[in-house]
């Protein structure tokens, strides 16, 4: 689909010809068939036209009405509103102005001319937030500055539709690593690779390529027969391995078709490789670095004071990254993955000593020390289905535990839920790619967490981890109108997102988008 600056007709007639014939057999016909072919094609085309014409229009419909849409009120009427932070409003109304929630309640007056969305009998929740996402809505990697990054958004990424079908309206996207568009269906896909549908065996196999190193860490095994990756079960290693490059993150909304309001935040976490803070030497270096950052801040303050006092003084030299400065100023948290008790303990103690905020990915064995996490107020990003066998001789005191979510809830460790994989996969295995995010929260319920807590793990908790709790994660007046209209309870595996709104705009409609099966359940 990429560039269309094709010159094949000039230089490779034969090649273009054959591909062309296979695609449009009609052209290979002799002249006397042409007219008939034309009629046939056009009629089939017209048939195809009708339902399809609406799709692109719908995606960008609000923009076409520009000014009018901005001031127009959207009213969602009749659903049970799960506000997350303020209980459930039964049969309520949500009014949206300028992409924000302006009123929530029962028996509200709906302004004249408001665009009404009927949600009678439906359930309304805030949009879900995916904390671990790769390759969604982005076209590039390795863009360091926010300005550069803002140029690489792709609001037409079709994966947005799949993400929205799972209720994901906001994603914390990994920027530095690959994954984006590398799949078969990706925009950057190599056209030489066969298409899905021609050789599904191969297609499925290749689709998983970008996900392997990203999602299951270093110990992912591949099925010797089919090449599909599978979830590791081996005991975790005490010494962390460098599993993936340092990540940069950005918060991106699934504002399908819209650039406006798509990019929310670019400096999200101070990401650290799991092994880079283990060992005396690494920790010494880290202390030095943090000290340098603090020294710089102090010098900067002195400098500002000096300027204020009218003294001439050169500004201090900055020898550390802006992210590190943000970390010591507690504007952002450190995000790193840790699995074993020792590793987690080490990271917590460092964060206490050097006084910065910490967010832990995975935390496989954190359930064994939940009180320590609670005391240090270290939140977790967990995947309840991650499973690791206990180590030999430590059967009860190592490895993963399905009931970890219950323990976290009881001890007051806050946790967000991530899917097993951060990207959308069309490989065909259901329920383990990004689209399974709500299912993962259901596994937290299986593990003993309350439904309310599990729903928070998809909404307000990740919003807090991202520092966006003032905009996202709950249905409250003043927050972004990122809303889901569901056809059943949020944590029922049969529930579908019927409609999704991002920034008050309808960006997904199950019946129109047709990315997932559409049927009425008896």
């Amino acid at each position, binding site marked *: 689909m990429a560039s269309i600056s094709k010159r094949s007709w000039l230089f490779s007639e034969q090649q273009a010809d054959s591909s062309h014939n296979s695609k449009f057999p009609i052209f290979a016909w002799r002249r006397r068939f042409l007219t008939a072919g034309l009629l046939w094609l056009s009629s089939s085309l017209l048939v195809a036209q009708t339902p399809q014409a609406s799709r692109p229009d719908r995606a960008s419909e609000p923009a076409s009405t520009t000014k009018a849409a901005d001031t127009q009120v959207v009213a969602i009427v009749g659903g049970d509103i799960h506000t997350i932070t303020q209980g459930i409003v039964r049969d309520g109304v949500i009014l949206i102005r300028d992409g924000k929630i302006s009123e929530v309640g029962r028996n509200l007056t709906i302004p004249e001319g408001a665009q009404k969305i009927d949600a009678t009998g439906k359930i309304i929740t805030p949009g879900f937030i995916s904390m671990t996402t790769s390759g969604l809505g982005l076209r590039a990697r390795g863009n360091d500055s926010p300005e550069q990054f803002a140029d690489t958004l792709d609001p037409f990424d079709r994966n947005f539709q799949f993400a929205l079908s799972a209720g994901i309206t906001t994603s914390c996207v990994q920027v530095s690593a690959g994954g984006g568009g590398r799949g078969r269906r990706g925009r950057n896909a190599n056209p030489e690779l066969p298409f899905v549908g021609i050789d599904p065996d191969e297609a499925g196999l290749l689709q998983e390529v970008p996900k392997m190193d990203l999602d299951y860490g270093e110990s992912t095994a591949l099925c*010797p*027969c089919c090449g599909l990756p599978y979830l590791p079960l081996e005991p975790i290693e005490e010494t962390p391995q460098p599993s993936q490059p340092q990540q940069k993150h950005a918060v991106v909304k699934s504002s399908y078709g819209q650039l406006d309001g798509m990019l929310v935040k670019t400096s999200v976490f101070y990401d650290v490789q799991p092994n880079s803070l283990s060992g005396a030497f690494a920790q010494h270096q880290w202390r030095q670095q943090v000290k340098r950052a603090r020294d710089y801040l102090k010098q900067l303050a002195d400098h500002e004071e000096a300027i204020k006092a009218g003294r001439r003084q050169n500004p201090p030299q900055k020898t550390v990254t802006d992210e590190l400065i943000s970390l010591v100023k507690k504007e952002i948290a450190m995000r790193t993955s840790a699995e074993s008790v020792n590793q987690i303990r080490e990271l917590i103690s460092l964060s206490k000593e050097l006084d910065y905020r910490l967010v832990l990915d995975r935390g496989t064995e954190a359930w064994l020390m939940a009180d320590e996490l609670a005391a240090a107020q270290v939140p977790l990003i967990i995947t309840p289905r991650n499973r690791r066998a206990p180590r030999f001789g430590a059967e009860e005191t190592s490895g993963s535990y399905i009931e970890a979510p219950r323990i976290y809830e009881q001890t007051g460790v806050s946790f967000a839920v991530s899917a097993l994989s951060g990207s959308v996969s*069309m490989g065909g295995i*259901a329920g383990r790619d990004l689209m399974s995010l709500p299912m993962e929260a259901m596994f937290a319920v299986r593990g003993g967490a309350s439904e309310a807590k599990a729903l928070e793990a998809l909404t307000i908790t990740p919003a807090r981890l991202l520092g966006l709790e003032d905009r996202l994660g709950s249905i409250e007046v003043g927050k972004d109108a990122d809303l889901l209209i569901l056809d059943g309870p949020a944590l029922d595996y049969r529930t579908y997102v019927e409609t999704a709104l991002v920034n008050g705009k309808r960006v997904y409609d199950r019946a129109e988008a*047709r990315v997932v099966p559409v049927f009425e359940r008896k």
Partner: protein
Amino acid sequence: MRGCSLILGLLAGALLIVANSWLMGQQDVAVPEQAAVPERAAAPKIALQVGKILPSFGEPIVNGTILIANGKIEKIGPREQIAVPEGYEVVDHSESFAMPGMIDVHSHVGGSSDLNEMVYQTNPELRNWDQIIPHNDQLKLAMAGGVTSICFIPGSGTNMGGWGVLMKTGPGKAEDVIIRAPGVLKIAQAGNPERQGGEVGSGRMGMNHVIRQQLLEGQAYVRQWDDYEAGRTSQKPAVDLRLEYFKPLFRRQIPILVHTQQYQVVHASLAMLHDELNLKMIIGHGTFDAFKLGEEVTKRNIPAMIGPRGFWQDPLDGQIKGIVAEYNARGVEWLGVNTDAPVVPQEELFFQAAMAVRYGWTEEKALRGLTIEPARALMIDERVGSLEVGKDADILISTGSLIDPRNYIREVFIDGRSVYNITKDRRRF
């Protein structure tokens, strides 16, 4: 060191051959061994009081009782209709659900994972029940996920990987857990066994050829024996170890589990294995666009056990289609799911069904598709797959319908023994 192990290996091989031929002489191994109830300490007599029983057939029983003796279900019904006899231990699960243990028709985690012998394209001489590791880590998890029986099969690295075994996931010796050996013949119709080395089998034509040739050879062998046993000929055929297990196969006592997916491959499976050779078969993956053959599958009454892939993206409109639901829409009722464990973790068999329901199947059918339908497909429905009198007492006690991921298992009974109990064991899944 290497030389040493080589010699050892040769010795072991020689011993094996000797032992095998001795066994052959002693008994007809080809008759599937319907292993009798293991000679273990007698299973306890149990009266299970359950809040709600979900048998595979009929209406759920509210407040039911299940009597278990000798590892079998002795009685099942509403509590008021069943008096608990003397000597039965009453186990109270009146707050819980009970359902039959689940059955996975396609698993590779029943033992060691050296399941592909890649020298020959067809390997009817190979069997995998000598490498069972009962109650291994994966099977412990499997039990906690409700899987009590699996069809443990060779891999799909060759067109005919060998003979798989039907076994239970609970503890015991290998002979205790085997339900039937040989369980199934594993055939991989296309895809994985594709050879790149330039020999026949680099494409579907070649692969279909080697399978067909091997099966015809087996058929001829079994016919000789049939003729001899029926007295049509007095000449006793020579025993051929390579072909011996074809006897139960061609006598339709065991099925073939075919790794077959995509329209044209499944079509070839139906045409060759069912139409031409009249063999019992199970469609072992049936994924991608193969559901378009749904009507043909219905017509032939062939079970389709779908997985590990559960959906297919239609290139025409980019929409996700639930594969099981698509089969069902074309009239196929003999449906189930599989995990191809470890591709999908063995304990997530139920979740395969849950996702199939999400994509358009129904819960009632999914419940059957996890239990009785695979049991019928594997031809072990006399023993497992439903909660009926006389069947093995493989029972799951749970907090609700186990298709819902939020519900979990409280206790598992296999052959009438409690093998997993979350009040005693650490909860595994």
